[in-house]
């Protein structure tokens, strides 16, 4: 299992379309991937799950991945978040 903390830095936070991009990306990998705040842990492949995090700008989230492509999936998701979901 691999994990990494990352800050949500885009202006709108983990809003609906950003969450959709994350879920689409996570869905391309075979690993089990979760995204969590201090309070809530969600399946990164579930749009409604990811939205329950209500993670606004400057929220720290933890990405955890476990499975055959865990490293690649973790890197890709961290990239997406660090690149502000292609926004701003």
């Amino acid at each position, binding site marked *: 299992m691999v994990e990494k903390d990352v800050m949500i830095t885009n202006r709108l936070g983990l809003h*609906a*379309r950003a969450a*959709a*991009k994350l879920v*689409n990306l996570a869905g391309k990998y075979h690993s089990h991937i979760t995204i969590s705040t201090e*309070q809530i842990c969600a399946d990164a492949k579930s*749009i*409604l799950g990811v939205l329950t995090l*209500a993670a606004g700008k400057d929220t720290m989230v933890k990405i955890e991945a476990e499975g055959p492509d865990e490293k690649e999936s973790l890197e890709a998701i961290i990239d997406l978040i660090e690149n502000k979901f292609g926004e701003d």
Partner: protein
Amino acid sequence: MFGILVVAHGELGNLLLDTANKILLQETPENVFSFPIAWDCDFAKTKEALDKKVDKMLSELGSILILTDLFGGTPTNLAMTQFKKNKVQILTGVNLPILIKAIILQKTGVALEECLSELRMKGQEAIVLVSDIIGEK
């Protein structure tokens, strides 16, 4: 695969569907439709049109989930005329989370009857009184 038909007042169904598609980053999927009910609709004529739509979807898909906006309203009353156990199920109080979940479940190929409870639960869970959680943040 079951079909999805959103039956709602005015443009509400079209807008819900359009919004769900934008959130899911997709074009309108096959087998998901909106059936707008005009504010001044003639019940009998509209029922006739809905009968045709439902018959067409049933012949192509075998089962349909009808999502309506307001229990007791005309769209729901019209939809209720279409109820057929195991073939046409109606869930009222549609919101965006229910519609998104329905579209996701539809793609998995799950049978209509198996996802009804989950859809109702997801719709209810998605209603959050922010003051209940804000203290935890």
